Every structure is written in C-alpha cells, then in structure tokens.
C-alpha cells in the first residue's frame, strides 16, 4: 500500500510539473511580444549558444555521416545499390538523424548550461535582486534565452546536416571514388520539399523545448548547490524525453500532409 501511495504521489508531482511547465510556456508567449525588447541580451545569448555549440555539433555531425555511410555500405553493396548511398544518407540525415542528434547534443550542452546558470542565479538571490529592483527577470533571463535557442537550433541543425553529409561524402570518395559534385547532386536530387521544410520546422520546436525546460528548471531551482546540479541534470533528462515526443508528433503530422 505505501508503495502504491508513493507511485501515486510521484505521478501527481509529474503532472503538476507538466502543468507548471505549460504555464511557464504560456508566460513566455505572453512576455515575448511585450516591451521592452532585450535585443542586446538576445544577440549575446544567441552568439554564445551558437558559438559554443558549433564545434560539438560539427564533430558529432561529421562522425554520424562517416559512421552511417561506413556501416550501410556493405549492405547496399550486397544488393548492388551503392549508387543509392547519397540519396539514402541525405534523406535520413536531413529528415531525422541530423535534427534529433543536434537537438540532443544541444540539450546536453545548452539546456544544462541554462539550467545551471539560472539555478545558480536563483540560489545566490540574483533573480530576487532583479525582481526587487522593479525589473522583470523573466523577460531578461528567460525570454532572451528561449528565443535565442529557438532561433539558433535550426541554424545549428543545418550546419550539422552539412557536415554530416560531408563526412559521408569523404567515405564515398575514398571507398567508391565518388566526386564531390556527383555526391551532392545525388543528395539534392533525392531531397524534396517535404523532406526539408517539416524537418526544419520541427527544429524550432526542439529549440523551444530545450529553452523552456532549461529555463524552467533553473528559474525554479531549489536552494543550495545540490539544487543547481539537480536543475542542470533534470533539464537534460526531461528535455531529451520531450525531444522524442515532439519528434514523434512532428513525424506523425508530416505523414498526414506529405504521405511519408
């Protein structure tokens, strides 16, 4: 019986948290259109997030492209379908692997960073200090960060996709003597409007999820250094789970419109 009560309490806490995050998201949309617009802080955050994640996204993308091609090649060779490699890699990276892997990397790098930074500001009363001076910390800290990652993630995904395709091309060039122009011509021949646009649109939602969860966890961080660590950690865990849920919904919706 106590175990059942514990499960019920945990479930209750989980749904309360979902409700709080929904309210937090609502507040974000309410504040984002209100003056004053913190343009300078928005650009600072966007630059920091983009700049600091670029190398990690690039390396991850490159390795994904490389590994995907290396592992798929023998199977395609068995069927005499190696010439389909650019199309297959292009579609899988642009539609799915690029966005989700880049978003997961950014959830780890940016989401945890936001959670830890805001958590630390909460614990050291910096957020309270902003509030009592009559300024709006939500607008300055949350709106700018959420907006920055929402706008930066699609760019990072595009860069990650490009680097992944380049990695794939390198393997094809070494193993199959395929030229750069031939490889990329094949990639772009295979890609359609329905591959690129929905995949790009969903990255905005990925960015929004990373920003909202990271900010929520940090903004309402419990007191103490332990709380800061927990905020950063739970931001990553919760966001990762949420990314897959959003991805599922995005694929489901795309399927309705484009008949995947």
């Amino acid at each position: 019986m106590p175990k059942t009560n514990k499960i019920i309490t945990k479930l209750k806490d989980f749904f309360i948290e979902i409700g709080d995050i929904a309210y937090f998201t609502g507040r974000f949309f309410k504040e984002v259109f209100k003056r004053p617009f913190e343009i300078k802080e928005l650009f600072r955050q966007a630059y920091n997030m983009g700049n600091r994640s670029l190398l990690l996204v690039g390396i991850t993308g490159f390795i994904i492209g490389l590994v995907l091609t290396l592992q798929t090649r023998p199977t395609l060779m068995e069927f005499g379908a190696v010439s389909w490699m650019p199309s297959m890699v292009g579609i899988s990276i642009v539609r799915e692997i690029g966005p989700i892997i880049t978003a997961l990397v950014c959830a780890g790098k940016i989401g945890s960073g936001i959670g830890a930074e805001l958590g630390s500001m909460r614990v050291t009363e910096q957020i309270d200090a902003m509030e009592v001076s009559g300024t709006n910390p939500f607008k300055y800290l949350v709106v700018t960060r959420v907006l920055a990652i929402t706008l930066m993630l699609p760019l990072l995904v595009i860069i990650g996709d490009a680097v992944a395709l380049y990695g794939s091309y390198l393997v094809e060039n070494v193993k199959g003597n395929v030229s750069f122009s031939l490889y990329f011509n094949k990639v772009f021949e295979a890609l359609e409007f329905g591959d690129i646009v929905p995949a790009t649109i969903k990255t905005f939602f990925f960015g929004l999820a990373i920003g909202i969860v990271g900010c929520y966890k940090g903004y309402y961080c419990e007191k103490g250094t332990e709380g800061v660590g927990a905020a950063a950690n739970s931001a990553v865990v919760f966001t990762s789970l949420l990314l897959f849920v959003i991805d599922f919904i995005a694929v489901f919706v795309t399927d309705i419109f484009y008949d995947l």
Partner: protein
Amino acid sequence: MIPQKNISAEHDLSEEREIVLEIKDLHKSFGSNNVLNGFNMKLHQGENLVIMGKSGSGKSVMIKCLVGLMEADSGTISVMHKDITKLDQLALDMLRSDIGFLFQGSALYDSMTVRENLEFPLRHHAKKMENYKDKDALVIEALENVGLADAIDLMPSELSGGMKRRVALARTLILRPKIILYDEPTSGLDPITAKEIILLMQDIQRKYNTSSLIITHDVDCARVISERMILLIDGTNYAVGSFTELSSSNDPRVQAFFKQ
C-alpha cells in the same frame, strides 16, 4: 500568541514622523510550521529600525513578504500608504523602485561588470530617473558614495566580500530609494569590514534621509545603528524598545540576544 512587550512605550514616540512602512498581523506558514504569527511593525520616515531574531525566526521571510518576493498567508503590508498585496505588477514594480534591498550575499549579477550591475536597474526606471544627470554620472556618484569608483570595470568575481557588499549598496542607492531594507548586512564579513559597512549605512542614511529596516543578529551592528529595535521571537514582535532598554531587560528571552 505571546503578547508584544513594549519595553518602553516611549519608543512609539515617533508618531510625529510619517509612517513609511507598516505591517499588521502578518501570518506566514510553511506546512505546519508557523513562521510568522501575527507580526506587526511600523517604520517611520528617516528611522533606523533593527529587527533581531534567531536563525529561522522568520526575519528573512518577513522582509521577502515586504517586497512581494513571497506571499503572506494573511495580514496587511503597507509601503508608503500603498497595500502591496493589492497592487498589480506594474504598480508593484514602480513601488519597488522606491525600496532598496541589500541582500545577505550581495547578489551581484556575476555575468556583468560593476558598471553594468549599477546600470541594470536604471534601464527599467528611465522615467523615474529622467530628472537626474546622465547614466554614467549616476553610476560614478553611487560608486563614489561607497568609496569604490576605481572598481567600475571589474567583475564581481574580482571583488572581496566587503567590496561586493559596497557595490551592492551602491546598486541599491542608484534608484534613490526612500526605504532601504538590509538583510544581514554584516554577515560573513570580518569585524573591521563589518564596522566599515555599518558606518557606510549611517552615512547613507544621513545623506539621503532614507528610512532603514535592518535585519540582523549582529549585536554590534544593532548597537551602533538602531534607533529602535524589535525582537522577533515565535513569529511575533516579542519586544520593542531602544538598544539600551532591550539590552538591560530582565526578560531571559530578551537577554539571550545580548549575551556574547
């Protein structure tokens, strides 16, 4: 409920001075823990009122309720004749610009320089400050008041504990508040630096004719700065009087505060 002991009725003498802050029958509890249990106080124009209490006695909860960082369960809080519990966010933010708050840990924004820390509240209260000189002059003047004009371009991480407290005080002063709330202004400082901060608080009070509410358990600080003191015990104002009157009281609960 323990009745308030007016150690000296004389200390309600400031009736001729305007009341700038008044708390009536304030209650706040966390679960079954009643932290504030019918707390009352009045702060007069230009007065230095010290509130002493043991750790966990509800001093910080009271001061947070006072600026709207925490919501009280019941009771009224009137700041400059405005009931803060009934103000909307905009009106509350305007009122907050008249209340300075010095946090226990200084709460400087650690991603900003000293200059940016001081400029931050100004950006959001441009209308209030339009009669004053340019922003730079205000920042320099506030830093000169605390003897730290040279630290203007330093980061908070480059400052000592005492310097941080001074910068935080300068940030508090920049909006020309009518009331300053000090939360443990000398905690964590060595005795010499603590004395410097106390003298600085006195200077500021004289220069700007502010009313000060000082939360502390530092007896030396209370002796030097207080005009009137309230002892917060069991969530209520247990005793009210001057430092001399309270320190010579025969009540063992009052005496406990003054024993070294």
